[in-house]
């Protein structure tokens, strides 16, 4: 073996032995029935993890999958923190909140495993994007299986990594099977590295059971990425010598295939290649066995989280950017100071501009947002910003799943992305990254990750038929880890946007198309004036606070977005107290409670189907807390949003229907 130091070679050998023995120990703990949960193990694939991670430095990063024990040990996590995590202990690398499928440790450069097939790829690309934007020398290696190739997340993440030359090594562990399905059944061309060329970068197939071959290929890829010539796709051919998960007897792996791969076992091959001596082997083996025996003994008695800590680590508490801003709960105009009249689109644009100027970590990412002569997004909010911030207006391909993943990855690395969709309806495509990654990473990592990600989405029925019209609030309000706001005027829009950027958690802001006040070609028919006197001074509108738009005595009308404006049209004649809920998650029960206890009647107005809406949640919340209050809802019927104006108008609650709903509840309780 020329060119390599003996110590280096033995180090790689020991890592592989440690992984194999760790996995076997865990397997037998399962067979014994001592370990909870399920496991996905990597016996036979040790060379891919060790070869790649040896080529990385300690401040480089990896993302992993449900099959991540080997990646973790190769990246430098200790067997103890890993074993503890598998036992669900507080001392585990994710404090027992992650478990086998989500092992990781941010202080060691490993994001908790992403167990959604291919879900880690856009995330890794976003981490790489942050390194590029911040001129950091790090690279990211993203591990995934052959099964990931068929997912849209692979295509979207890889394409963006390619167009922006991101420092990302795409490490495909091709072990011939996705669960029980052979690659030949799901790919016409099963040479996975060929894919790279079609995206315009370099791919290579490597013997993944030859740790030196993997190491050398990874080293080359790292050098290319550091030099700005990423990404690189490495297809590592390997084989899983154990079941897909713990109960899988592998009956789909033909015996001769298994035997052929047994002959190519990465550890035995390397031992032969470096001509390991009996003494060296003995020394390493004894050390590994001792370490693991101790780890198992300690993990079995490691302390578990207490049940009272169940809700810990859902949200980040500390504000990531200390600020001495005016906080105003319910202003019409700011106290003192001068103001101007702005529409929502203008106010948002101003807020984004100020934040980008103040904080180099803030950037925008979305479709059609940074093209000179373009639109400034679908509703002109980012119009012209590319002139001032050419590097920080990231104009994406049409790939919502991908770029929400990139935004999440960048946020996780400390950036402050603002990601927007052109129409809220497209959030369904992005929802895996929003719900499974952005909202959960803090929890799964035992509170070590923050995702300060701001997301913006226009909603509302506006003459565009069923797929550019839905009120999406309902789908995101019940997601732990996520905050949701919905401003009805320009003052709130700017103030909530600023609060969101300083929050430290993922915040999704819904905006209504009829309220933007967009001008020119992007003006909307039926638009409602939502302009406000917006202060010149810096201010935020705190998340989690509702606003009383009109005080009244007889009934409380709860609304948000467009419905606030319609409710206000009939509030005087009904003597209604109108509450702009505005923060849909968390909900401000204090303000709502004070009002409904006073009026005894609550009418919740929602644009969107009545069944399963946010209104249902508010109604239940009121009924549970103040059972004597009468509650009803005014909402859309349970139909898709129609196109033809006559039906669309019947679909969307209006002032008359609100008035009718209020009169009905008042009559019922008095008659």
């Amino acid at each position, binding site marked *: 073996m020329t060119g390599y130091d003996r110590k280096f070679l033995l180090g790689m050998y020991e890592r592989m032995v440690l992984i194999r023995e760790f996995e*076997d120990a865990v*397997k*037998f703990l*399962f*067979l*014994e*029935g001592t370990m909870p949960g399920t496991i996905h193990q990597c016996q036979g694939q040790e060379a891919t993890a060790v070869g790649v991670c040896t080529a990385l430095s300690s401040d480089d990063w990896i993302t992993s999958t449900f099959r991540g024990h080997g990646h973790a040990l190769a990246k430098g996590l200790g067997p103890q923190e890993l074993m503890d995590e598998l036992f669900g202990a507080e001392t585990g690398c994710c404090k027992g909140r992650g478990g086998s499928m989500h092992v990781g440790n941010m202080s060691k450069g490993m994001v908790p495993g992403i167990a959604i097939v291919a879900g880690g790829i856009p995330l890794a690309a976003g981490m790489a994007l942050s390194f590029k934007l911040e001129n950091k020398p790090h690279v990211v290696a993203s591990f995934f299986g052959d099964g990931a190739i068929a997912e849209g997340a692979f295509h979207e993440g890889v394409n963006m990594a390619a167009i922006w030359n991101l420092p990302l090594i795409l490490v495909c562990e091709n072990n011939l099977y996705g669960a029980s399905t052979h690659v030949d059944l799901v790919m016409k061309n099963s040479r996975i590295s060929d894919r790279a060329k079609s995206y315009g970068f370099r791919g290579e197939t490597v013997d993944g059971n030859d740790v030196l071959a993997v190491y050398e290929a990874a080293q080359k890829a790292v050098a290319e990425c550091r030099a700005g010539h990423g990404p690189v796709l490495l297809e590592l051919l390997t084989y899983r010598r154990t079941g897909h998960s*713990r*109960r899988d*007897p592998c*009956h789909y792996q033909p015996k001769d295939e298994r035997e052929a791969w047994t002959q190519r076992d990465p550890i035995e091959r390397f031992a032969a290649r470096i001509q390991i001596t009996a003494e060296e082997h003995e020394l390493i083996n004894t050390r590994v066995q001792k370490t693991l025996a101790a780890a198992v003994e300690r993990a079995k008695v490691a302390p578990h989280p207490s049940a009272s800590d169940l809700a810990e680590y859902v949200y980040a508490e500390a504000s990531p950017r200390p600020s001495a801003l005016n906080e105003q709960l319910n202003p019409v105009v700011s106290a003192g100071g001068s103001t101007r009249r702005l529409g929502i689109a203008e106010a948002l644009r101003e807020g984004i501009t100020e934040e980008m100027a103040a904080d180099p970590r803030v950037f925008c990412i979305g479709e059609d947002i940074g093209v000179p002569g373009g639109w400034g997004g679908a509703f002109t909010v980012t119009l012209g910003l590319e002139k001032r911030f050419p590097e920080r207006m990231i104009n994406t391909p049409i790939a919502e799943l991908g770029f929400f993943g990139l935004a999440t990855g960048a946020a996780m690395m400390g950036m402050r992305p603002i990601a927007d969709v052109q129409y809220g309806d497209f959030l369904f495509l992005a929802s895996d990254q929003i719900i499974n990654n952005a909202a959960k990473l803090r929890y799964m990592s035992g509170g070590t990750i923050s995702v300060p990600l701001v997301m913006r989405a226009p909603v509302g029925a506006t003459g565009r038929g069923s797929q550019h019209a839905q009120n999406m609030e309902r789908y995101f309000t019940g997601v732990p880890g996520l905050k949701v706001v919905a401003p009805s005027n320009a003052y709130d829009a700017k103030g909530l946007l600023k609060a969101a950027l300083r929050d430290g958690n993922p915040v999704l802001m819904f905006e209504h198309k009829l309220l933007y006040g967009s001008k020119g070609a992007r003006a909307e028919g039926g638009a409602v004036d939502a302009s406000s006197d917006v202060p010149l001074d810096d201010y935020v509108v705190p998340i989690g606070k509702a606003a009383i738009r009109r005080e009244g005595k007889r009934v409380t009308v709860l609304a948000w977005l467009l419905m606030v404006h319609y409710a206000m049209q009939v509030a005087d004649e009904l003597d209604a107290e109108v509450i702009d809920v505005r923060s849909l998650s968390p909900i401000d029960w204090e303000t709502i409670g004070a009002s409904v206890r006073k009026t005894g009647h609550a009418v919740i107005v929602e644009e969107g189907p009545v069944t399963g809406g946010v209104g249902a949640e508010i109604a239940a919340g009121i009924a549970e807390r103040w059972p004597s209050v009468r509650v009803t809802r005014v909402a859309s019927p349970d139909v898709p949003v129609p196109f033809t104006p006559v039906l669309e108008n019947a679909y969307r609650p209006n002032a008359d229907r609100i008035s009718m709903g209020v009169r009905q509840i008042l009559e019922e309780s008095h008659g």
Partner: protein
Amino acid sequence: MDVNMKMPDLATNEGVELGVTRWLANVGDPVKRGQALLEIETDKAVQEVECIANGTLTTIHVQSGQKVAVGTVIATIKVS
């Protein structure tokens, strides 16, 4: 030292008993961790179960044809 090997939790459904169909080693045989030690029948399939330790198989507690609950001791291995 004696290591007790238990019936592994390989059933798809909770609470079903698993049957030993065949022992692949005899009492007194030297055994190695990872070698197929017996065959069991789950509610899903017949599959092999790997030995969990290196040593000598000293006792077989559950004979082929018998069904037992997950966690029942099925064999004892004397570890050298």
